């Protein structure tokens, strides 16, 4: 339920986007920040509140829609992209967001994620990656690192984790980005970039699960080390990072290597980020850079234009109607041999 705005708001504030439901995540959960930043990001888009729809699966993260005063649909585990796809085909006018977790989106729901991405349905898929199943009280997930000890892996997990961005890129994604729960400005900006992308946008957010996986992303969030372990991508700029911004990524054949600037290594020698590259090889390579061997990349890895699924389908409908006129039931019924009994 919701309170009705008496006059249409000229611009939204984050508060307008808050529902009346108590937020029920654990104290200290990274989801709080994502919720706050989402409201901030959407408020500035100039889209009226009623045009937003949040669709989620099941998980702590998937409770998200209840807290947004927009239309929302908390569906079943792993299937949110399918509901979003149907909705978007029916209603291209809506801004449709999918909220999912590493379990919801990559374990049970991996296939739907891939297919929504490859079809380039114009939906924004936000994956809260806390490398754990939060809601079911802490089993390892498909993104948990090898050795993660949980209730279901007391001797440590033995499964190779998936890299969400690698999978998305492997599935022909047109937009992929990564950000962090605690980097509030970057988070807001990234969500906004996703909102502006026309097509399937896939955003991975590193999110801290305070209760079952506290601190897995500390290398990227701890003030004292994060500058050396993270690299913020900027389109057209060389890949530079480090506390003193004196480290960079250079290409050695097809492999990235960390180099220190100076001593004959100049910014010009570094890999230049190109989010618009036609082929996703660069984005893929960046998605493979993993701490501690490399700094991990944040920002927009890839953003290219391609027609959306629903636009193409609707165009087929329009084309045929333009060419042949709208269909009449009478004609359709008679579209086989007919005979008259009198």
């Amino acid at each position, binding site marked *: 339920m919701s309170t009705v705005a008496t006059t249409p708001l000229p611009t939204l504030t984050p508060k307008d986007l808050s529902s009346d439901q108590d937020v029920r995540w654990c104290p200290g959960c990274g989801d709080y920040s994502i919720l706050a930043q989402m409201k901030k990001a959407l408020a500035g888009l100039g889209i009226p509140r009623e045009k937003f729809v949040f669709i989620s699966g099941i998980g702590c993260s998937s409770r998200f829609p209840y807290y947004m005063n927009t239309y929302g649909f908390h569906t079943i585990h792993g299937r949110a992209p399918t509901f979003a796809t*149907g909705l978007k085909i029916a209603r291209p006018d809506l801004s449709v967001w999918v909220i999912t977790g590493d379990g919801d989106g990559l374990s049970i729901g991996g296939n739907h994620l891939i297919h929504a991405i490859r079809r380039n349905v114009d939906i924004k898929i936000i994956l809260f990656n806390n490398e754990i199943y939060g809601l079911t009280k802490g089993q390892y997930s498909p993104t948990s690192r090898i050795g993660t000890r949980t209730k279901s892996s007391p001797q440590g997990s033995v499964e190779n984790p998936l890299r969400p961005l690698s999978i998305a890129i492997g599935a022909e994604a047109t937009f992929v980005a990564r950000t962090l729960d605690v980097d509030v400005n970057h988070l807001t900006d990234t969500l906004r970039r996703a909102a502006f992308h026309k097509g399937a946008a896939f955003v991975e957010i590193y999110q801290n699960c305070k209760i079952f996986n506290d601190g897995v992303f500390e290398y990227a969030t701890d003030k004292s080390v994060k500058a050396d372990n993270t690299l913020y991508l900027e389109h057209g700029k060389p890949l530079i990072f480090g506390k003193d911004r004196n480290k960079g990524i250079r290409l050695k054949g097809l492999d990235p290597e960390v180099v220190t600037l100076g001593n004959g290594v100049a910014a010009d020698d570094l890999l230049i980020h190109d989010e618009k590259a036609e082929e996703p090889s660069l984005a893929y390579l960046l998605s493979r850079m993993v701490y501690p061997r490399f700094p991990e990349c944040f920002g927009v890895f890839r953003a290219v234009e391609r027609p959306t699924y629903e636009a193409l389908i609707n165009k087929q409908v329009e084309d045929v109607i333009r060419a042949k006129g709208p269909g009449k039931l009478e004609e*359709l019924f008679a579209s086989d*041999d007919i005979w008259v009994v009198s």
Partner: protein
Amino acid sequence: MSSVARSVEESPSESHERGGPVRHRVEELDSVVVRFAGDSGDGMQLAGTQFTNASAIFGNDISTLPDFPAEIRAPAGTLAGVSGFQINFSSQDIYTPGDLVNTLVVMNPAALKTNLKDLEKGGLLIVNSDAFTFNDLRKADYATNPLEDGSLSAYRVIKVPINTLNREALKDIRLSPREVDRCKNFFALGLVYWLYERPLEPTLRWIREKFAKNPAILEANTRALKAGYNFGETTELFPVQYRVPKAHIKPGTYRKITGNEATALGLVTASILCNKTLIYCSYPITPASDILHALAEMRRYGVRTFQAEDEIAAVGAAIGASFGGALGVTGSSGPGLCLKSEAIGLAVMVELPLVVIDVQRGGPSTGLPTKTEQADLLQALFGRNGESPVAVVAPCSPADCFDMIIEAVRIALRFMTPVILLSDGYLGNGAEPWLIPDVNALPRIEISHPTKPNHDGQFMPYLRDERLVRQWALPGTPGLEHRIGGLEKEDVTGNVSYDPINHEKMVRIRAQKVANIANEIPPLSVNGPEEGDLLVIGWGGTFGSITTAVNRARRKGLKVASAHLRYLNPMPKNTGEVLRRYKRVLVPELNCGQLLLLLRGRYLVDAVGLNKIQGKPFLVSEIESEIYRLIGS
């Protein structure tokens, strides 16, 4: 032949010494069952379809049954590769494609082997004798040639060297030998047209339209058809010609329709009646794929088809489309229904309209994918976790698929509920004449969407009307922002609620809402006496066999009636009362007794089942004998 010959006259054709048309007797019959059978490559489906059209246009009542091989292309000439098409045409109302075949046309030994068992004793067997070479016989696992070993003595065998005659007729057309041979189905068809006095013109017209761009083929098929016809007229192989007079059929414009076609047309029609975009979400599966194919061709009618990555995605997308205010429909067969069950449960909880089509096939598991069965009834009713009531309807004939899918849409939209339509392979692929309805006379489906708060300036998504139905508020409507989901919801507000009493209340409301549908469906009617010794009650595609069997038994003086449940959940309100008016109740089903369990459990009547699980519909005679067994004769 099953019906009695009534008149004997001379054929009108002139008599000649030789070479010209010969004199033939003409016998008049009520109904006839013809089956064409040959290799998948022999064009039997085409021959059957043309025969059906010609018969329908002539004015007979018709019912058909195609029979495909399970393999895409089994090796030519093998038993696995046999394809058949059966037509029952009649001067009376008929409801089934017929039990026994009166005239069987076989194009090769494999077709003979797999089809002979269905030919009545004394029936006419037209054999393409050219195809009984040693090699052909071996492929069909024949040890000796049945045309020579006397094994066919119970039938009236007519050997026709179809290959030779067809080649002869087409010899001066510039076509490859293979192309020429592919016309032989038209030769066979022409011969049978002559035998049953069918008009050639509809088929000739079809050939002209179909092959307009290929004059050689056009000419070849035309000639093959006529050659076959003339062969019948000219030779003395057939002493008798048969005539099946026109049926007394309700006046109007007709076409032949399969259940899957009718389902597709019904969906488009429903979408126009309710003024909603039809979004059909499906993952291909036999025997449901043809609905997807048909709808994919209907973009002109605003239809969107979504070929999903699997059945879960299909049902998810359909629910998503419904959430957005479209007509979300998903279709599959039994294994697909398994996969959709979790999401259907969600639709129950969020109370959105959803239509789910299950074109049932032989099970369990992959089972007999190309065969028919009725074994998903209990799955449709109960195959979900928790108390998860949905409406279930089932068409009773191919054409009824049109009406019942519209009913499914109407119920889904008016009650904000999932509705499962149980079709089956027999209904889906079988065809019958369909009286084309007057579009303007079809009742609209009125729907409204709220645009304003409904409760003290707030919008309560789970506020209900007197029928217990909640409102369908669409995303994009300012001020009605709300959230729905699969967790139990608080009455009225729709907020998540773990309250025990609220849960019980909501479970009972959902059940009552579905039960309320019974207020808006027709009562169960009976065919036959209002009370008596036996009621034969069925559902789905068994309608034709049951009705025919009961009518026959009644003609023999038995006090037996039939009833057919097109609404399985809820059932018509008078169901229990109807059941109790008969001394005994028989429930024929193509399963192990699923409706039977429901009727016994709900109404506590000592009904008995007649069960057939052979991937095939009931023969009329099977039901008839059971009637006699139960109440003597």
